[in-house]
């Protein structure tokens, strides 16, 4: 079958139609059609894109959550480790400060030889104000040796084993220490109590004592060296009907927070018991 229209004519017609369509489009005659087409196309694209992203999220987000959880756990572990380090360092700073103060005290009082010790326990009995330290006879600690901190007098060594020792604090009810008041140079006896409060007894009635007076060891009796700081007077009780005045002492040492102490190892307590005569028959 022969074509009814020549090939060249077909080409010309197509070109004319195309040019006409372009001219109509440029003239704005196709705008409604293009707008409708664009709207449908954009709508479809939006829908497909949304679904695609949803599928991608569905496939990828769980993996991200898992990795985030892992990261979170790692970070939490890091935080915990760092917090532990901070606490340890704070503890070390505190210990260093205390030890530094003890070293300063030892330097300021070079006449004595010291042995530093940590307080590792307290006596199980609530009647006793005793503590246990981690040095004993292996380090030259002997019963009766005085014990101090940079703040002042703590007590004396009561019992010793090779690796540890038990200290009787001056706050113990059975403790008695000869002291003197720095301002008036008055002698007195420092006694403890079951509540841990310290008081001064045997202060002569004619002695002039005041709140704030500093209390030091007197060295009498030979149990403690002289001039160790004990505390300050916080109240005075003076009754004319009594033979002696009494006073309450605020100790310089915080006995509830004892961590480190110094045992004075070159002080030999004097046993004066043989000199105290026993009553005759």
């Amino acid at each position, binding site marked *: 079958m022969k074509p009814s229209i020549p090939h060249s004519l077909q080409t010309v017609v197509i070109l004319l139609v195309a040019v006409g369509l372009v001219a109509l489009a440029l003239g704005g005659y196709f705008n409604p059609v293009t707008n409708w087409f664009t709207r449908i196309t954009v709508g479809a694209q939006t829908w497909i894109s949304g679904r695609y992203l949803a599928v991608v999220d569905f496939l990828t987000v769980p993996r991200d959550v898992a990795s985030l959880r892992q990261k979170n756990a790692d970070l939490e572990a890091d935080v915990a480790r760092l917090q532990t380090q901070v606490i340890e360092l704070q503890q070390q700073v505190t210990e260093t400060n205390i030890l530094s103060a003890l070293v300063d005290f030892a330097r300021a009082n070079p006449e004595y030889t010291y042995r530093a010790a940590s307080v590792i326990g*307290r006596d199980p009995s609530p009647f006793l104000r005793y503590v246990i330290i981690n040095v004993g006879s292996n380090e030259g600690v002997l019963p009766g040796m005085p014990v101090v901190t940079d703040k002042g007098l703590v007590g004396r060594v009561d019992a010793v084993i090779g690796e540890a020792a038990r200290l009787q604090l001056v706050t113990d*009810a059975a403790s008695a220490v000869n002291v003197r008041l720095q301002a008036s140079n008055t002698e007195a006896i420092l006694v403890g109590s*079951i509540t841990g409060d310290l008081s001064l007894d045997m202060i002569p009635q004619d002695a002039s004592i005041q709140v704030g007076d500093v209390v030091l060891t007197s060295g009498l009796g030979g149990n403690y060296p002289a001039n160790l700081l004990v505390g300050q007077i916080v109240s005075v009780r003076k009754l004319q009907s009594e033979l002696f005045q009494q006073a309450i002492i605020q100790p310089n040492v915080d006995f509830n927070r004892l961590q480190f102490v110094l045992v004075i190892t070159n002080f030999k307590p004097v046993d004066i018991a043989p000199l105290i005569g026993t009553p005759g028959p």
Partner: protein
Amino acid sequence: MRRAILAAIPVLPLAVILQTTIASRIILLSGNADLVLLVVVAWGLQERVRGAWLWGVGASLLVGMVSGVPWYIYTLGYLSVVGLARLLVHRIWQAPLLVMFGVTLIGTLELLMLMFIQRTLFEGPLALSEVFSQIVLPTILLNLLLAIPVHALMHDLANWLYPEKVTG
């Protein structure tokens, strides 16, 4: 008996260590809990256990070694408490916690009174009213507070060491 001794070897020293390092530092007024007494009482109150007396002796020797209180005070106190616990355990077996509270109360009171008498005789007089308000009452309160957890722990330990025999 061997199991009781083997159990005592770690438990009693651990109790003494916890007592001196922690319990003695937790002070209410001037009183503190006696963890070793509670352990001895709780062990003595377990029905099937043996060697409760040995636990009493061991505990008193260990605490006597650490404490400034003479060893015989703890020996007297702990052994009498074990005796009381063994006496009561077969009589009031239906209310173990009640017995634990009762023996703890009596044991604490007795031990503190022994200490008070010893201290008064050998170290000088103490005001009884002050001792009661500052030491005895707070110590009893702390011991009673700790009695339940200690009893539960010792009950588990006793059940583990002496499992109940099932008769078929």
